[in-house]
């Protein structure tokens, strides 16, 4: 297996055929309704309708996933993206097919907005062989190198230098690809993120740093953890830094498009601080824990700024309802696919540990 050229062997299952796309996709992209076992293509997010549809896909995907966590189909837990959808959709709308992204522990929105098939993603969350990572990664490690998804990540801030490295390699190869590093306000206090800002700035690398400031590092308010400001930190490295309303898909997209265009043309990295909010808890365990670090009033005030109604209003209620129905059907089929996909054989638990095929010794002598 060569790096950057993932295994061609598809899992045994295949996703159900999906509904027809709402319209024709531009060159180099595909509608986000492509069948799961076709070669994946990045999601087309070039129209307000497609962006709305993706917002809804992420929202409904997460709601469905919350239900599957509750019913025990998804073990462990997830970090729901609900409330932050405008960031993933706005940023990914600014990307081209060769671009890459590094995601976070709260990564479902990023990978879906990039084009990862929700059927594969849901199967991954359920730990099935039909999952995007063959059931080996789960929620926090979803990756698809064919889509430029370098991986969600379980370590806060860890994806940023990986994105910087991919951007370096792509530039050396003569590509004009841009790499996006998604991270939260918690990552602003990881040293490796600051190192990454410096390296990207010194070497003028095509990296878009996207800080999703949802106000809390788990339960710690950003106001009690971040000295100075996010954009101030980026500006200290000479990186153009902009604050954006992270609840407004079109504002995020406009800012991201400007930053991506500049990076693509050799203008170096950029930094967006998207002010956003997660409507759910940090992770699914939180529902059981009765924590009081946010007031109900604060949550309600942010829910008033939900990005979906705004995007729906832009395309009209009738069109939005039709797209909602399309997404529902797609996700129903995705769930059917995920639940029908086999559980992995325990005999293969150590499969894929080494790309060289090395088999580790067993934990007991026969």
């Amino acid at each position, binding site marked *: 297996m060569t790096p950057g050229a993932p295994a061609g062997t598809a899992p045994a299952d295949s996703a159900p055929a999906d509904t027809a796309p709402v319209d024709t996709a531009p060159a180099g992209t595909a509608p986000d309704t492509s069948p799961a076992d076709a070669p994946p293509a990045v999601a087309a997010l070039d129209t307000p309708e497609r962006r709305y549809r993706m917002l809804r896909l992420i929202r409904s995907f997460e709601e469905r996933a919350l239900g599957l966590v509750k019913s025990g189909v998804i073990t462990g837990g997830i970090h729901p993206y609900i409330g932050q959808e405008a960031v993933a959709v706005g940023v990914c709308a600014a990307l081209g097919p060769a671009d890459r992204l590094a995601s976070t522990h709260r990564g479902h929105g990023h990978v879906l907005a990039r084009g990862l098939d929700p059927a594969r993603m849901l199967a991954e969350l359920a730990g099935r062989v039909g999952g995007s990572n063959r059931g080996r990664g789960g929620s926090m490690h979803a990756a698809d190198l064919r889509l430029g998804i370098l991986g969600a990540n379980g370590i806060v801030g860890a994806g940023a*230098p990986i*994105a910087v*490295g991919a951007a370096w390699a792509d530039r050396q190869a003569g590509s004009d690809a841009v790499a996006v590093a998604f991270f939260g306000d918690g990552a602003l206090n990881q040293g490796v993120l600051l*190192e990454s800002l410096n390296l990207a700035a010194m070497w003028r690398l095509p990296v878009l740093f996207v800080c999703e400031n949802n106000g809390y590092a788990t339960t710690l308010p950003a106001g009690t953890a971040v000295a100075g400001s996010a954009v101030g930190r980026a500006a200290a490295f000479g990186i153009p830094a902009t604050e954006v309303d992270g609840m407004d898909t079109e504002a995020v997209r406009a800012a991201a498009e400007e930053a991506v265009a500049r990076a693509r043309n050799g203008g170096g990295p950029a930094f967006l601080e998207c002010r956003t909010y997660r409507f759910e808890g940090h992770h699914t365990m939180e529902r059981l824990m009765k924590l009081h670090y946010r007031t109900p009033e604060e949550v309600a005030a942010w829910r008033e700024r939900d990005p979906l109604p705004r995007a729906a209003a832009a395309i009209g209620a009738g069109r939005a309802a039709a797209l909602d129905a399309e997404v529902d059907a797609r996700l129903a089929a995705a769930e059917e696919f995920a639940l029908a996909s086999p559980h992995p054989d325990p005999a293969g638990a150590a499969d894929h540990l080494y790309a060289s095929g090395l088999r580790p010794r067993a934990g007991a002598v026969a």
Partner: protein
Amino acid sequence: MRLSYTKALNRALADELDTDPAVCVFGEDIGAGMAGPTLGLLDRFGSERIVDTPLSEQAFTAMAVGAALAGRRPVLEFQIPSLLFLVFEQLVNQAHKFSLMSGGQSGVPLTCLVPGSGSRSGWAGQHSDHPYSLFAHSGVKTVVPATPTDAYGLLRSAIQDPDPVVVFAPAAALPVRETVTWDLAPVPLGRARVHRAGTDVTLVAVGHLVHDALAVAEELAGEISVEVFDPRTLYPFDWAALGESLERTGRLVVIDDSNRSCGIGAEVLATAAEEFRLIAPPRRITRPDGTVLPFAPELDRALQPDREQLRHALRAVMK
């Protein structure tokens, strides 16, 4: 040709850079060649491939992960073995785990080169560690060449490997020179080398301690027939070759510059006890538990495995 250990590493890097355009080198002061192995590479291959980095070990190690996923084969040079503790996150959590966590989408073909690992006689607690067992424990492919030709061959194989590999070049082995009358070639990972055949005791020696093992084996030749077994790769370990050697000797001594608890020496003894034929209780010579090498030369030496301990252990297993 007279080949030094450092020159061997330098040639391996140059040959890989020459052969494969995907290979590049990241590290501190590598343009100037401060540590030795990268001397002259900047002039020959340019700053696009020989990349001097700021002092940001964690970021440039993770950058290598990203570059590897984008099709490159980065080599990282660390001037100080203790820097590996800083980048354990990037090497284990990110580079090593990616293949499994991604369901086999890709390995992460990066190589860490640590020229001058272990004690450097006088550089004290934060420059003198030898943490190869930590990587073997984590499942990262780990090699510790003892000789210049093995250093050349194993570094080339490490760079060609599709998974992360850490290459320790012990400070005490760097002065070793070898007369080479054959073409240098890659040495496969995971294959041990028997430097000296013997029938009484299998002496497993790691890295620079291979040379101490050979000297003591010669010294005791009239008394004990010692087989000097150099695993070369600590992970994956060549258990089959060790089993064959123990089949001949039935006795085992390990000399290993790890801390005692959970060091590779402990693993060799445990595996031999479980799986192979032993006719005498085995012995290992290691650093003490939890070693921090003190500065003063007498104290630094006092905590490292030495030849007197080795003589004693070899005689003990013969009793």
